[in-house]
């Protein structure tokens, strides 16, 4: 027998388990059910509900199985009279104050209290006194509270603390007056707040958008995957009569454990937005008119063929692998190799040095096991909430978390060292860090390092010391870095940092399938299988060039592309086929043909996440109106273009198989961040006296679906993104006050009128503005107050 194991019996079954485990863990493993409310396998044990009482031989009183560690020779009885008496008594106490409102409670049918009351409760209550009533609290647009139903298991408190990283709610008062809540009524701001709905064993915390929509047992459950970030959290889509009504987590212990972000949970509410594309439209005599699919396909192919080699194809990075593959196959056959999914990237100098696909450079587990993590250019918790949780897990295990950011963000992480430099200085600051680290570990630097400016001194000693000493360092580049005008340099420097600290390096890509885009051949320099091909134009080039024809797929360039105004101008000038699920007002002006594409949850397919994991998912709902799954549209376009044989797929699986034959088997090899290319270092953004504007992609602004998810738009996070954030020093010099309306003018006629907010978290010389406000992601701007009289 293994030294670290003990033998015990539970209900007569002889079991062996590692020392230190508790009875409930061993029983769960062996499939022996012990009732519980407060215990949750991913949360700290508190043993406060007493539902799990069991009999342990030789101990006079019943013991809580969730917190009693196993010992050698222990004999546990979970169903003996002694045990069940205790369980029944607990149940009776719990039901004393619990309301009998199951018929109007959304938890009905999937309520742990209801289930256990059936198994352990009495048919009749002996309690005749009045039950207590607890007033509800407004805790935001996502979670509906009915606090009278609460049984004080404190799971919700622990989820927010352990998973969300901050104690946002607690148990105030004492005894009968105890109450779960925020005490001072305010909304819960964690990007993982929806998880309290899942863990609440009763109907005290329920989904607000799902309120009174359906009963759990009416819903059909479908396997799906998050379309919003590069981790690909595993989800179930619950639908009723073909409509997606709810999204809940699907356990995957290598990605999201049992948690999901609010974005993944509530984005489905955007599916029914009033601007959903429901029918095919084509432009005739200047007007968009509704036509049959046949006519629309013919019209679309006409535009694509006419543009031929000069066609520009830009896909959302959350397009499925199969759709990406078909799109590139179609346009390459039509003679174009201008295809890209990297819509918010601006610096493509290092394409030649790209790895097989951009990735985290390791598994998600490796991130949570790292002993030193340096985050560069990222609002991690809002960009990829579950990765934020994984880093939090690492921190809890003792990892040092460090940050180098162009603006101070509250990452809800225990940050050991934080360095904030202006976005203009970011590249030189990382270069200075590389130099300092090389000195510390006594290694030489590659030649290109001499091209970085040495003008400014930075103090990096604690970060350098920690990286040098770490056994498993991890350098992570976030979305702000990817969107930076000198991303290529940041990436090269980041990789170098990882090399010097003998650690790993990863990039958090945008969308849910950026890695897949490389493997499907949907980027200009890669063909199917990720093999290098003669490069076509990047997303940036395509818009800068003004091509005669564009094929855009599930993007809204005014919001989703690096230079929104430039994209708009290019689209206005060319012929545009837009395959989209939603139609923006701008699209009605520039699109010549609109093909309605099935949205999230309405199509099957697969994604490759940032750790190189290939994941399949199924449609959970019926495409709305006449919209069709993307792969079927592409198949029809192929046939219409005369490529009948090459696009004769009967099933989605055939497309997948064809692509996989060029990719090779799983797990997907690649993603190491070694660069072979050699390119000039670019100053990026000049660090001069001028003011520069930077777009902040808010957590609920990044893609067409979340932008339409009303409950998410009502959160504090969404509101926070809607302003022009400026440092108090700059504001003073410009004579700008908090909450004042200001005009931000960029080059040409680009400008945005926004409400200014002053914040010390913003560095001097920069102003942070929201997505879609009419300016590119970065650019020099002028800022002036709009006189009150002129407002009207």
């Amino acid at each position, binding site marked *: 027998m293994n030294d670290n194991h003990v033998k015990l019996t539970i209900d007569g079954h002889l079991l062996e388990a590692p020392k230190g485990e508790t009875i409930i863990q061993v029983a769960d493993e062996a499939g022996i059910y012990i009732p519980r409310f407060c215990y949750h396998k991913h949360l700290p044990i508190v043993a406060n509900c007493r539902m799990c009482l069991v009999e342990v031989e030789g101990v006079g009183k019943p013991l809580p199985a969730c917190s009693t560690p196993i010992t050698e020779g222990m004999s546990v009885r979970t169903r003996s009279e002694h045990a069940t008496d205790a369980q029944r008594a607990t149940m009776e106490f719990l039901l004393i104050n619990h309301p009998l409102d199951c018929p109007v409670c959304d938890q009905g049918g999937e309520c742990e209290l209801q289930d256990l009351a059936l198994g352990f409760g009495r048919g009749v209550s002996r309690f005749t006194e009045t039950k207590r009533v607890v007033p509800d609290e407004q805790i935001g647009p996502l979670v509906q509270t009915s606090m009278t139903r609460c049984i004080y298991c404190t799971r919700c408190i622990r989820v927010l603390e352990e998973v969300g990283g901050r*104690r946002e*709610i*607690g148990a*105030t008062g*004492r005894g009968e007056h105890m109450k779960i809540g925020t*005490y001072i009524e305010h909304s819960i701001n964690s990007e993982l707040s929806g998880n309290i709905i899942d863990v609440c064993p009763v109907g005290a915390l329920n989904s607000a958008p799902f309120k009174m929509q359906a009963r759990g047992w009416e819903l059909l459950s479908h396997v799906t995957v998050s379309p919003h970030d590069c981790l690909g959290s595993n989800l179930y889509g619950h639908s009723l009569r073909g409509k997606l009504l709810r999204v809940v987590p699907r356990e995957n212990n290598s990605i999201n454990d049992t948690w999901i972000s609010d974005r993944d949970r509530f984005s489905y509410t955007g599916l029914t937005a009033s601007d959903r594309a429901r029918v095919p439209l084509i432009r005739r005599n200047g007007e968009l008119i509704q036509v049959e699919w046949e006519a629309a396909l013919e019209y679309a192919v006409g535009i694509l063929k006419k543009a031929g080699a000069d066609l520009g194809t830009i896909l959302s990075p959350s397009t499925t692998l199969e759709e990406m593959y078909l799109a590139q196959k179609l346009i390459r056959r039509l003679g174009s190799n201008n295809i890209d999914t990297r819509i918010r990237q601006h610096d493509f100098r290092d394409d030649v040095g790209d790895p097989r696909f951009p990735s985290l450079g390791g598994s998600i587990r490796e991130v949570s096991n790292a002993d030193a993590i340096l985050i560069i250019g990222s609002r991690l918790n809002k960009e990829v909430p579950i990765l934020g949780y994984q880093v939090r897990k690492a921190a809890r295990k003792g990892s040092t978390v460090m940050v180098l950011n162009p603006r101070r963000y509250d990452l809800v992480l225990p940050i050991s060292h934080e360095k904030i430099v202006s976005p203009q200085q970011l590249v030189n600051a990382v270069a200075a860090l590389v130099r300092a680290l090389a000195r510390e570990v006594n290694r030489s630097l590659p030649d290109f390092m001499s091209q970085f400016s040495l003008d400014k001194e930075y103090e990096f000693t604690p970060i350098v010391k920690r990286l040098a000493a770490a056994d498993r360092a991890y350098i992570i580049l976030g979305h702000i870095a990817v969107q930076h005008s000198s991303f290529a340099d940041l990436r090269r420097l980041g990789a170098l940092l990882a090399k010097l600290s003998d650690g790993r390096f990863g990039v958090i890509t945008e969308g849910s399938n950026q890695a897949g885009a490389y493997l499907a051949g949907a980027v200009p320099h890669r063909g199917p299988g990720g093999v290098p091909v003669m490069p076509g134009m990047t997303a940036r080039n395509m818009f800068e060039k003004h091509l005669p024809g564009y094929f855009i797929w599930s993007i809204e360039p005014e919001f989703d592309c690096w230079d929104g105004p430039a994209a708009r101008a290019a689209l206005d000038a060319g012929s545009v086929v837009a395959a989209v699920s939603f139609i923006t007002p701008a699209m009605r002006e520039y699109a010549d043909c609109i093909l309605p594409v099935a949205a999230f949850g309405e199509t099957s397919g697969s994604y490759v996440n940032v750790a190189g994991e290939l994941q399949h998912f199924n449609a959970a709902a019926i495409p709305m109106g006449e919209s069709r799954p993307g792969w079927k549209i592409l198949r029809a376009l192929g046939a219409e273009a005369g490529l009948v044989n090459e696009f004769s797929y009967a099933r989605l699986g055939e497309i997948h198989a064809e692509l996989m034959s060029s990719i090779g088997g799983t797990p997907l090899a690649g993603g190491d961040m070694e660069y072979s290319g050699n390119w000039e270092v670019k100053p990026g953004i000049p660090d001069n006296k001028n003011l520069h504007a930077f777009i902040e992609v808010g957590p609920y602004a990044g893609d067409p679906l979340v932008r339409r998810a009303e409950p998410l738009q009502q959160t504090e996070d969404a509101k926070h993104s809607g302003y022009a954030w400026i440092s108090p020093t700059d504001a003073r010099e410009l004579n700008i006050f908090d909450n004042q309306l200001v005009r931000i003018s960029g080059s040409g006629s680009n400008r945005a009128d926004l409400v200014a907010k002053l914040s010390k978290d913003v560095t001097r010389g920069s102003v942070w503005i929201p997505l879609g406000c009419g300016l590119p992601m970065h650019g020099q701007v002028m800022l002036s107050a709009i006189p009150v009289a002129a407002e009207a």
Partner: protein
Amino acid sequence: MNTEEARARLGQSVCDEIDSWIAKFPEKHSRSASIAALRAVQHAEGGYLSVESMDAVAAYLDLEPIAIYEIASFYSMLETSPVGRHSVSVCTNISCMLCGGEAILSHIERKLNIKVGESTPDGRIFLKREEECLAACTQAPMMMVDHVYYTNLTTEKVDQILDNLE
């Protein structure tokens, strides 16, 4: 609120007292000083803890505000809303109940024209929530006024005690 703002809000002498408590616990366990800190603040700020003062304590001890709200709302010696200057609590637990504790309590309610949990409008007396057994059963009925026990109560005795309060 950051530590500096918290320090300004709490005042130097309160901060000194909190510091002396923090020093008694191992490093990084400043949370253990919560109760002592709240007691010091309550004493310095007119007998109760405002939300703002609790937030300041939380910031000073580097805790989430809710952790302080939980403590302040749990312990009966900490008040979270303004109360009268003198705190009166009458025991109505079993021994006192058998010896007329409840009659004493209703006498006080009638005399002061307030209910349990309320303060007199002149801010003189706070009739605190019913106390549970204060371990003076042998001299029941009893009450506690500003942390001092008064035992073997009669209504006359109670009148005298209350009338003497400033």
